[in-house]
């Protein structure tokens, strides 16, 4: 393989952008919790960076992208274990001249943000040590399996069973692998850990909205690397993904604020920040597959449905504390399914894997929509079940949740020996 300097430079930059999303997420989540649990919240995210980056370099990458193994569920963990002596000819970016290890690092940042996203569902009550154990197990058994299925040559890839039976499902940058996966895991984890003390009675208001807004801005900034980087090249399709990543969240933010204005009387800054993230989530799988109108429509639908979905937790009594289900599961489903309507693969700048078809509004039939739905619900089911098993196992062995005394007083002091805002 001949290394392409331009593409490689862009992928190194994109990797750094995606890594920045996780500290951005820490701010986004940290501002939403109370002043006495903000450090614990941010540490759940930073802890995920530590654990996933290490595990990814040893077995994580190989288990996800190695040659198909274990009946097609995983990649072979021994092939690239430790990542020494790898050949650039086997790089995920071989076709665009990007070296093996750059692609390993790029994919590591996706695994990091995915598991970090889950933590928002269990804010204010999660012990740090068991969370780190959860991260190792979840990366190994859930993330690796879902990512292998979609991107590693598994059943949802261009060579897989869904492509043979219907058409190739489109997940450009991680609507299923990252967002449906994280959202379904968040739902399972919230159910296993149980609600916060006072859930449904007390208003859990954000302690620092400027943190939340800055966090959403950093997420957006990093997301340009996430989506435009998923082209693995600096070309016109990266430009399409880049533009769609700008306009879909903008439309979603406006839609979310409009829903709040009508439903609650006032558009909130939390709604604006959440709308941006909901739009980013929804455009992720579709970033290179839809045209400008498709991106705007995806943003509007995601902003509206996510804003409505975040109230379901009160009706159905699951304490998804920071709305990971409402934003990532719902947004991921919206984006994945909207492709079935808006996929416009002959627009010129768009791109999709071999065997994918145009959506209903661009001359396609129902095939692509059904294919999208199949992969979306499969990812949901696999992630929910796998997460519930891992979480329940940890709950009955080492324990997952702090005592009610710690939850009432301060999880930051009990778990980390610090308070975010010391009086000097």
């Amino acid at each position, binding site marked *: 393989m001949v290394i392409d300097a331009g593409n490689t430079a862009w992928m190194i930059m994109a990797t750094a952008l995606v890594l920045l999303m996780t500290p951005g997420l820490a701010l986004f989540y940290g501002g939403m919790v109370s002043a006495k649990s903000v450090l614990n919240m941010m540490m759940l995210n930073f802890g995920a960076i530590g654990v996933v980056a290490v595990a990814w370099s040893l077995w994580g990458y190989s288990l996800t992208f190695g040659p198909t193994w274990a009946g097609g569920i995983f990649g072979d963990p021994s092939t690239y274990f430790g990542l020494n002596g790898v050949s650039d000819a086997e790089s995920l970016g071989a076709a665009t001249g990007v070296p093996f290890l750059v692609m390993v690092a790029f994919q590591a940042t996706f695994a990091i943000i995915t598991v970090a996203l889950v933590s928002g569902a269990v804010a204010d009550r999660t012990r740090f040590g068991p969370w780190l154990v959860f991260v190792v197990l979840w990366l190994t058994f859930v993330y690796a399996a879902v990512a292998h299925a979609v991107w590693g040559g598994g059943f949802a890839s261009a060579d897989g069973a869904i492509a043979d039976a219907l058409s190739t499902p489109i997940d450009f940058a991680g609507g299923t692998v990252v967002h449906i996966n994280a959202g379904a895991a968040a739902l399972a984890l919230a159910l296993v850990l149980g609600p916060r003390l006072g859930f449904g*009675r007390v208003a859990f208001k954000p302690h620092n909205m400027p943190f939340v807004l800055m966090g959403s801005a950093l997420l957006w900034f990093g997301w340009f690397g996430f989506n435009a980087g998923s082209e693995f090249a600096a070309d016109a399709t990266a430009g399409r993904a880049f533009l769609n990543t700008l306009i879909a969240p903008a439309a979603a933010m406006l839609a979310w604020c409009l829903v*709040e204005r009508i439903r609650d009387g006032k558009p*909130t800054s939390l*709604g604006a920040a959440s709308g941006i993230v909901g739009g980013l989530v929804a455009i992720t799988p579709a970033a290179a597959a839809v045209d400008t109108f498709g991106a705007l429509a995806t943003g509007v639908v995601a902003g509206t449905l996510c804003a409505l979905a*975040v109230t379901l937790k009160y009706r159905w009594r699951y304490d998804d504390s920071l709305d990971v289900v409402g934003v990532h599961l719902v947004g991921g489903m919206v984006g994945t399914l909207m492709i079935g309507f808006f996929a416009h693969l002959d627009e010129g700048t768009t791109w999709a894997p071999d065997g994918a078809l145009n959506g209903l509004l661009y001359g396609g039939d129902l095939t692509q929509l059904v294919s999208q739905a199949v992969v979306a619900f499969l990812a949901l089911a696999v992630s929910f079940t796998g997460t519930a098993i891992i979480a329940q196992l940890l709950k009955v062995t080492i324990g997952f949740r702090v005592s009610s005394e710690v939850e009432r007083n301060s999880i930051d002091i009990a778990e980390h020996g610090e308070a975010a805002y010391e009086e000097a």
Partner: protein
Amino acid sequence: MKLVTAIIQPHRVDEVRAAVEAVGVKGVTVSEAAGYGRQKGHTEVYRGAEYTVDLVPKTRLEILVDDADAAAVTDAIVSAAQTGKIGDGKVWVVPVDDVARVRTGEHGADAL
């Protein structure tokens, strides 16, 4: 001597401070408070969820005065803090046995 304590709407603090100063009060202690009276709490909506706010934010003023000034100070507070809406607060007066000024050690009316 008397201690005048007032629980008022936070947004009336400046007006009240000016009003008591105008009737000769030399010092005021102000603190944040939260509570409810006959208005009870109220419901608010945030992110589509309704919840009750049981304790409403208030400001608490404490003023030590001579017996003779208590009525004037009370009236000044009431007229300056009044908006006529529910939740305007209360003012009460209690007798004080002794007051000492820490810096000089003076007692009684001299310490006011």
